[in-house]
């Protein structure tokens, strides 16, 4: 496989107040692929994502993102790296004092010199991609849970990032919205050659979009490989996960 590594995690160990959350976790994510990080609740999926984003300090292990060791980056280098990433947080992370339109426009206003009218058009178009064209002037508090998540996704992709990181994007969405979201992710991957890292446990979604799977269990990464290898794996946690998840 001749693919560039966009994320390299090596020997990552994380402790919170003496409790080990991740223990010697190593894996890679590749350019132009959808990499799904799986695992049960409390297995450290979100912590992995936060470590990749440099939101928590790295005490043991190494993480390279787009070829750069994130523990050595200064603030301006970190900002440059963030501009190549779109991040979708589990709870949306929309700023409550701004309208949905203003929230989505924020990265464009801060990091581009596009005219106001074009920014407005881009924002409306990105909102229409997630079926939220009528929410431009609404405040996040006026949105339902699913709409809130979709608005957050629109903000994450507004700059056409090279890499999109999503923390449970499908949680709380109905099956139709989930399928549309998956289609959007596939379109972004195919047409924009976007690399996508998703933390999720929606099996139907994983089967639709994943190229590569990382499975976390009891603080360790017990599997790393393609989706088809994951489905063929004889490891019990993986078999349970896919078999029980399919019935959901």
């Amino acid at each position: 496989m001749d693919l560039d590594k966009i994320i390299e995690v090596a020997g990552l160990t994380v402790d919170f107040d003496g409790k080990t959350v991740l223990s010697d976790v190593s894996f890679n994510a590749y350019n132009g692929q959808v990499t799904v990080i799986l695992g049960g609740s409390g297995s450290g999926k979100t912590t992995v994502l936060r470590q990749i984003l440099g939101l928590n300090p790295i005490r043991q292990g190494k993480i390279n993102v787009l070829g750069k060791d994130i523990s050595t980056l200064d603030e301006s280098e970190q900002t440059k790296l963030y501009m190549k990433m779109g991040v979708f947080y589990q709870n949306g992370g929309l700023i409550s004092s701004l309208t949905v339109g203003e929230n989505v426009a924020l990265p464009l206003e801060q990091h581009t010199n596009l005219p106001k009218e074009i920014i407005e058009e881009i924002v409306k178009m990105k909102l229409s991609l997630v079926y939220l064209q009528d929410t431009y002037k609404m405040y996040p508090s006026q949105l339902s849970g699913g709409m809130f998540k979709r608005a957050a996704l629109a903000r994450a992709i507004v700059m056409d990032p090279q890499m999109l990181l999503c923390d449970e994007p499908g949680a709380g969405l109905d099956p139709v919205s989930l399928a549309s979201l998956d289609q959007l992710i596939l379109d972004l991957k195919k047409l924009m050659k976007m690399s996508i890292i998703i933390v999720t446990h929606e099996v139907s979604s994983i089967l639709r979009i994943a190229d590569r799977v990382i499975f976390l269990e009891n603080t360790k990464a017990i599997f790393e490989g393609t989706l088809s290898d994951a489905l063929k794996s004889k490891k019990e946690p993986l078999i349970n996960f896919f078999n029980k998840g399919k019935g959901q």
Partner: protein
Amino acid sequence: MQKKEKEQAQENKSQPEYFIEGNTLFLYDSLKFNQAGQFVLEALKKLKKHKSKVLVVNLKNLKDIDSAGVTAINYLKNKLTKKGINVRIDDAPESISKKLELFSMQKPPAEIQTFKPSFLESIGQNLYSFFSDYFMRFLYLAADVFYWSINDLFNSKARRKGEVVNQAILIGVNATLIVVVMSFIIGLVIALQSSAQLRHFGADIFIVDLTVIAMMAQMGPLITAILVAGRSGSAIAAEVATMKVTAELDALKTMGINSVRFVIVPKIYGCLSTIPFLTILANIAGIAGGMVAANIFLDITPEIFINRMGHSLYNKDIITSIIKSLVYGSLIVLTGSFFGLRVKEGAEGVGKSTTIAVVVAISLVIIADSILGLIFYT
């Protein structure tokens, strides 16, 4: 390596490559975030004098485009269509036309009809909303709190164990030091500034009457209330607002628990059981401050000061002081809870409701002070 450098250079290029020949606009290479803005502005300028009713946008040589590029083309198309020019996109390679399809708005946003009231109508609307949204709801909350406070007196089983004591400590006991220190300083300053005037008239001894009456009837309860409003009123508003934003109040409701009874009544008990004592301490500290100033600036010894106090301190002033403190305490808790419950948005809403709760609580305390002053001293 060379390929990457080439890609990087392409990415950093801010000049869009295009030219207009006859009725056709040819786009080359790429149209991305850093070129889209300039492309739209320049192209619109150049096409200002476009005479033909048709414009073909030829994308045959366009190698890459992103969402900003697609938006720029669509924006240009809409602007020209409004001028009566029919714009057609031609010869787009498959990868480009797929992106054009993905990044074109699926359905334009619905037009929202807005009604703008006239000046007089807006005054009427604002007055009506003030009375219905603020005044009446504040009274409803006060009635609710009063009902549950009385009800809880006879129903100790439903009370949260230790919560009243906890609130009494938070609202009252923890404020003791600041209230005593501030009152002492204010008593000292009142006596200090008055002493110069009284000395002119040889009425030095009346510094005692002035300090005692000012502290007991006015300054003691007022200083205590303002400090408690700033300290605990804001905390009450922030706590209730956060509970509302994080759906804790909804959770209480769906568990069949009255949120006023569960959250606000312990605060009322805690405040009303401590604020009279705080006020008495503030009065004593203020008078002590006055005594120090009188001793230093008017040579009135503490013995003379205390002897003279018997002539100026009446039971009525002590009772008035306590009644005032109870009214102010109720207003502070009610205002904090009221604005906490009214919060609508997230983090910013909590901040707003906290600020407004403190401002309104202090304003209401001052208004109540003047009303009670009229009642007790006329």
